[in-house]
Structures are given as structure tokens and as C-alpha cells.
């Protein structure tokens, strides 16, 4: 039963990603070759994705550790707000970054005041900076889930044994990271692999061409479906390779049950350690919050002058987000349960597929599949909800899978001996203990679905515009102030949704 549900979800994901790719490839026919430009695009894509993932994760570890062992007023808000960069329409986040790091941004203004030469954000370093801005918060959140999962008893035992912070890191934290880091790194690497607008805009020129842009060009200007499908296929192969490596490196954490006591960190009391954590948290908060603050300030005037259709789009987007979140939660749970029950990596792989699917190929392929049987415009919003759910699934899985494995490792034998199976096991054992990660996953899915433009453009009918689409429409009509206002609205709604779901999942627990 578990395997059936998981298998059905995996099949759906396969259809959405590989199936749409096949639809495009079949439509094209014939054979194609890669050009020299494609190869250099491939090299640049891999380079920036690897750098971005490595940097995001290595910065996230100390920040997440600092957040995990400190309690301070506003911590909960800080953690919630950290999700924001990931949720913004790409171009709005880029504007926020430029207000800080751009030619006339705060940083260069400060340097000029000090009589120092300015710095330019444009180039590979700018692309990586932007990707770290987007993904560092995600990595921190995923790692925090890992820290939360360490039973309080371990820290109690560590304190009783007189562990130093270094001992805690070696014996408690490192094994946890070994289990969580590969998946998180992989997810970010794959997100950056399909980056397109950020890479081009901050890359400073055609040298910063990614594979996704090459796909875009193949579609839009050459209408060379074969080449588009080939390039998208290469992305899938890269994804598969990276996923296999990540699974080789990753080790499942050895689990011992805990009693869900509140975590007390006796090891983190030293003043120097407090100072170090304070500095880390402050720096991360500044790096993430200043650009967001500038986006917000920029958006306030426009927010008051938003035309009525934009508010309607906001409602529409909220509906899509909630539907998509429910879909994503259900699919992620089914996949994770099947993975835990069967131990088959195929379910992991299926869950990663949406990350590397080129949105353009996916949209076009779906269009080719839907168009002969139904009116695409009529199905625009349901398709958007489904695709967004699939796109958020890999992140939801990263939160759910480790938690579920842990539940089975710690309580599975007891449940087995009690004959607790099927629905009862899900209702009495798994869901209550999965509440936190599930809330986080649902919130993330809802928020991602609010922000993602995804495939809606090719399906959009008259009047079916979602909020991100309206942001672009406003920008396209010179209405930059209103676009900033609409972006602020989008940011607020995404964060609100995320906060609601995440809060619901946490109950009274603080983390």
C-alpha cells in the first residue's frame, strides 16, 4: 500500500519531468549536435553551481550551529524571515542585492565615503553571491531541522561527561551533518544548475551563459526542439550523477531514541563562544535582511497604488499556493514513506527529478501533452499548482525524509511489536512526530508556489494571471513603482503563508 502510493507519485514525477522531455524530443525528431558555445555554457553552469552550493553550505553550517544553540528574542522571526530570499521573484531579489552591492549601492557608497575604490558585482563572483543569497537561508533551515532532531538526552549526556564544544562537534554534530549535508548540498547545486536570469544579469555578459539560457534560445529563437531536448537531457544526466555521488557520500545517522525533552545546551556557555555565535548570526542577518529591507522600502509607495487586478491575482496565487502545498505535502509523504519502507534509492531519485527539469521544457512538454485533449488556458491554474508542488517537492523531501527515517529507527521496532501498521501507524506514530518537519515542508511549498513563475506563462489565458506574472507585466509596462509594490505584497503573502504552516507544525516547541 505504502509502496503503491510512493510508486504512483514517482511515476507522476517521472511523467512531469522525463515524460515532458520525451514529448518535446519526439515532437522534434532527427539528430542534433552540441556546439562549442553549448559546451562552454555547460562548463560555466557546472562551475557556478558547484561554487554556489559549496559556499552556501559551508557558510550555513556555522550559522545554523549558532542558531541551534542560542535562544534570543526575535530568533523565531529571524529564522522565518530567512526563508524570504528564496521566495522572491528572481529579478526583485536581484534589485534588492544591487541596492546593497550594485554600482550605486550602499556598499560602494560606503567605500567611496572612506575614499576606497568601488567594487563591481558583475561576473562569476556576482552570480555566486546572488546564489548564496538565495540558498544560504534554505541551507540554514534544512540544517536547523537536523539539529532539532538530535535528542536532548545526548546533550545532557555530553554535559555529564564534561564534553567540550569540540567534543560535541565531533561526536554529536558531525554524524548528523554527515547525514544531512549531502542532500542539502545536492539540492542547492541542482537549483543553481537551472539558474538563468540571475546568472545572465549578474554575470555581466554572454560569457555567463547557462545551459538553461541555451535551452531558452533553442526554443524561442531557433525553435530547435531537438537541441532543447538534448540540452535538457544533459541536465538530467548531470542531476543523476550528482545525486548518486551525494548518496555515496551521505551516511544515515545512527539513531538512538530520545524522550523529546527540551534541548538544553550546557556545552555552549563560554563567553567567547557566545560572542562568536552573536557575530555569526548578526552577519548572516545583515547579509540577508538588508537587501530584503531595501526591497520592502522600495515597494511601500507602490503598494498603496496597486490596481485592482493585482489584488485579484494575489487571491488567485494564494489559492494556487494552498492547493499546491497540500499536493506537495501528500506527494512528499507518500514518497518518503515508500523510501523508508523499501530502502530503494529510486524514490530519492524520483524526488530529485523536478529540481533539474528545465522549466521551459517542462512547460512546453506539458503543453504538448495537454493541448490535444484539453484547452490549456482552462487548465492553467491547476497545472500551475501541480507543477509548483512538484518543484517544491525536493525541498519538502529533504525536510521529511531524515525525520521519517529517524522515527522508524527509534520507534519502528516498538510499533512493529505492537502490530501498528497502515493508517494507524501513520496517524498514531508518524504524523504526530512528523508535525514539525511537515509544517516546515508545507510552508515552504506554499511559499515557493506563491513566488514561482514556473510554467504559467505558456498556459496563461485571459485574466488568469498570478501575482508573480503581474509583477512582470507591471515591469513590462514601465510601471516599476507598482511592480515593486506588487513584489512587496508577494513577499508579505509568501512569508505569511510560510509562517502560518510552519507555526502550525511547531505547536509550542521552539526551534
Amino acid at each position, binding site marked *: 500500500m505504502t509502496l503503491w502510493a510512493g510508486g504512483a507519485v514517482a511515476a507522476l514525477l517521472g511523467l512531469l519531468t522525463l515524460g515532458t522531455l520525451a514529448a518535446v524530443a519526439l*515532437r522534434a525528431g532527427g539528430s542534433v549536435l552540441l556546439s562549442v*558555445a553549448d559546451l562552454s555554457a555547460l562548463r560555466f553552469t557546472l562551475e557556478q553551481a558547484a561554487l554556489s552550493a559549496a559556499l552556501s553550505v559551508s557558510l550555513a553550517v556555522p550559522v545554523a550551529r549558532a542558531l541551534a544553540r542560542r535562544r534570543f528574542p526575535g530568533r523565531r522571526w529571524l529564522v522565518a524571515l530567512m526563508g524570504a530570499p528564496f521566495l522572491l521573484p528572481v529579478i526583485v531579489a536581484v534589485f534588492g542585492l544591487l541596492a546593497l552591492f550594485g554600482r*550605486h549601492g550602499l556598499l560602494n557608497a560606503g567605500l567611496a565615503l572612506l575614499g576606497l575604490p568601488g567594487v563591481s558585482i558583475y561576473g562569476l563572483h556576482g552570480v555566486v553571491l546572488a546564489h548564496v543569497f538565495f540558498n544560504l537561508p534554505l541551507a540554514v533551515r534544512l540544517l536547523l531541522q537536523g539539529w532539532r532532531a538530535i535528542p536532548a538526552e545526548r546533550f545532557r549526556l555530553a554535559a555529564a561527561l564534561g564534553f567540550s564544544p569540540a567534543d560535541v562537534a565531533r561526536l554529536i554534530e558531525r554524524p548528523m551533518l554527515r547525514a544531512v549535508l549531502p542532500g542539502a548540498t545536492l539540492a542547492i547545486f541542482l537549483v543553481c544548475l537551472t539558474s538563468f536570469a540571475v546568472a*545572465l544579469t549578474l554575470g555581466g555578459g554572454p560569457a555567463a551563459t547557462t545551459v538553461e539560457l541555451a535551452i531558452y534560445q533553442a526554443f524561442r529563437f531557433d525553435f530547435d526542439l531537438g537541441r532543447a531536448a538534448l540540452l535538457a537531457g544533459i541536465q538530467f544526466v548531470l542531476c543523476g550523477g550528482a545525486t548518486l555521488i551525494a548518496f555515496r557520500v551521505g551516511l544515515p545517522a545512527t539513531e538512538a531514541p530520545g524522550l523529546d525533552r527540551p534541548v538544553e545546551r550546557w556545552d555552549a556557555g563560554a563567553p567567547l563562544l557566545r560572542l562568536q555565535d552573536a557575530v555569526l548570526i548578526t552577519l548572516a542577518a545583515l547579509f540577508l535582511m538588508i537587501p530584503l529591507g531595501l526591497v520592502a522600502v522600495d515597494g511601500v509607495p507602490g503598494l498603496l497604488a496597486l490596481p485592482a487586478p493585482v489584488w485579484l491575482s494575489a487571491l488567485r496565487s494564494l489559492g494556487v499556493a494552498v492547493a499546491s502545498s497540500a499536493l506537495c505535502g501528500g506527494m512528499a509523504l507518500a514518497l518518503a514513506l515508500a523510501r523508508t519502507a523499501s530502502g530503494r534509492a529510486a524514490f530519492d531519485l524520483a524526488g530529485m527529478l523536478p529540481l533539474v527539469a528545465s522549466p521551459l521544457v517542462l512547460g512546453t512538454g506539458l503543453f504538448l501533452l495537454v*493541448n490535444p485533449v484539453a*484547452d490549456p488556458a482552462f487548465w492553467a491554474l491547476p497545472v500551475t499548482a501541480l507543477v509548483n508542488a512538484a518543484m517544491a517537492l525536493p525541498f519538502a523531501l529533504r525536510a521529511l525524509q531524515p525525520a521519517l527515517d529517524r522515527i522508524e529507527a527509534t520507534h519502528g521496532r516498538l510499533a512493529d511489536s505492537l502490530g501498528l501498521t497502515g493508517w494507524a501507524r501513520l496517524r498514531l506514530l508518524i504524523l504526530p512526530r512528523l508535525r514539525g518537519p511537515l509544517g516546515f515542508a508545507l510552508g515552504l511549498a506554499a511559499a515557493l508556489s506563491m513566488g514561482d513563475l514556473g510554467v504559467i506563462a505558456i498556459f496563461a489565458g485571459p485574466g488568469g494571471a498570478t501575482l508573480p506574472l503581474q509583477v512582470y*507585466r507591471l515591469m513590462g509596462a514601465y510601471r*516599476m513603482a507598482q511592480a515593486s509594490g506588487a513584489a512587496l505584497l508577494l513577499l508579505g503573502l509568501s512569508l505569511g503563508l510560510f509562517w502560518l504552516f510552519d507555526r502550525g507544525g511547531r505547536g509550542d516547541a521552539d526551534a
Partner: protein
Amino acid sequence: MKVSLIAAGFCALASFAQAETPTLTIYTYDSFIADWGPGPAVKKAFEPICHCTLNFVGTGDGAALLSRIKLEGARTKADVVLGLDTSLTADAEATGLFAPHGTLPKMDLPVAWTDPDFVPFDWGWFAFVYDKTKVPVPPTSFTELAKTDLKVVIEDPRSSTPGLGLLYWVKDAYGDKAGEVWKSLAHNILTVTPSWDEAYGLFTKGEADMVLSYTTSPAYHLIEEKDATKAAAMFTEGHYMQVEVAAKLKASPNQALADQFLAFMLTDAFQSVIPETNWMYPAVTPKDGLPDGFDMYRPTKSLLYSADEAKTLRDGALAEWQAALSK
């Protein structure tokens, strides 16, 4: 069960409504049908005349519009496609899906119009737009621009029609020397964006000194924002044009209605909406003339390749551009 009954009833009703009034389906780019675009006004003006329902379908931008038609092929539901431009028409023509237009009225285009299928509905000149308070002395040509340290943001010709327009502009003005001109401009190019929206956004946020846009862009700021600081730099090489066109599909079952729409497109009711919604020059100047600000910039020389020339030159010009800027 109840829901499906309601749905069935709704569908039946909808098909009754359809049987009474014919529907004309027009594929267009997304910003045309935005609530602040020309679409709503055009629909309101045309429906009482044609006694039909005008159904606009948005498909992203102009290039996406053509991809969509190619994807759907002869089975497309579109009766009319509106919003391709002259860099795309040769490709569109080659699909064999479009039908010739009838005789056209006298139009106000700076170039002669001979295309048998596509009917222009608006046009504009590409230009670099700048802020007079920040750039007191604008460059007067590409070569002058190359001598300055001004930072411009341009659109990528591989993903954006203005970007492609700039490619043709330099090619048309400099021919075989286009590659060298791009090399000399490399230090001016702050960055390349996927589409016009991002580029113009970077400019209005103060990140770039100049942006590739249209000579009519300053008119938007003047009319809508009462802001007279934005200006278009006039280049001695002349200015490349963008002409936006529409055409009907051969396979459309609504040939007469499609013809009626294309004729309506060049009348005052349609054309007078264009300047202040699409911010382009109408193909036929309305009888009340153009809004203020539309006469600020009149390049003395207009550049435009024929559809076939544009198609032949594209890949070579793109390679030159890429080679010059990929360092």
C-alpha cells in the same frame, strides 16, 4: 456528483452562448492583454462592431508567441496572431500558416511596407535612454559612446527582441565592422539581461547610466509620471526600427471576422489606444494626433532590414556579438 452536474450545466450554457455569437481568438503577447495594456480597450471597441466575442490569449512575449504557433501548427485555435515583429516574420512566413492580407490603407511608417501577409499595427525606434540630470552630454553615436565610460545595460539578443534589434542596428550601421564596434563597446556594457523588463528596471533603479529601449520611453515618464528628466540619445548612424505586426491564419474558420479585425486594427478606435498603452507609434496616426512627448525625438535616418535579410544575417551577427563580449 453535484459539482459535476453543475459543471455540465455550465458547459451546456457556455456552448449555447457560443452558438449565438461567434468568437474570434487572437494570440498575442502578454503585456498586450494586461489590464493597463491596449487589450481591454480594443475588446470593448471591437465587440459591438463585430457582434462577436473577442478572445485574447496571452503567450509570454513576441518570440514565445511564434513558438506557440509553431507548437500548435495547423491545429491552432488562433484566428489571428498579433504582436510578432519584423525580426520574426521571415520565420513566421516559412511556417506557411499565415494568409495574405487585403489592401492596406495609407500608413504612417518611416519605411515602405510590402509584406503580403503581415499588417503593421505599431512601430518604434530603438534608442538608448538616459537621465538628463546624470548624463548632461549624451553620446551622439556608437563610436562616441565607446569613447566614454558610460555604463549601459542591454538585452540579450538570444532571448529578447529589443536585444536582437540592437544587434541588427549595429550590423546595419557598420556592416563588416560590426564585430569591431562591439569590441569597442565591451567596456560600456554593464550587463546583459534576459528581457527588456529587467534592463529597464536596472536603469530606473539607477544601476546603469543608459538602457536600450525606445525613443518613446521618455514620453511615458513625461505623461504618466510628469517626469521630464528622461531622454533618448540621438545617434548619427540612424536608429533601427521595430515594427509590430498581425496576421490571420489560413486555417481559421472565421476568415471574414479575422479580415474585419485586421481592418479595424488600422482605424482610429484601435490606433488611438496604442500610444499611451503600448508606448509605441501607431501605424496610422489618429485624427487627434499624437500625445505630448511623442514628437520629442525624430531620428533623421531609419534603419530596418527586410524580413529575409534579417533572417540571413542573424546567426552571423549573433556570433560576432558573442565573440566580442565573451571575454
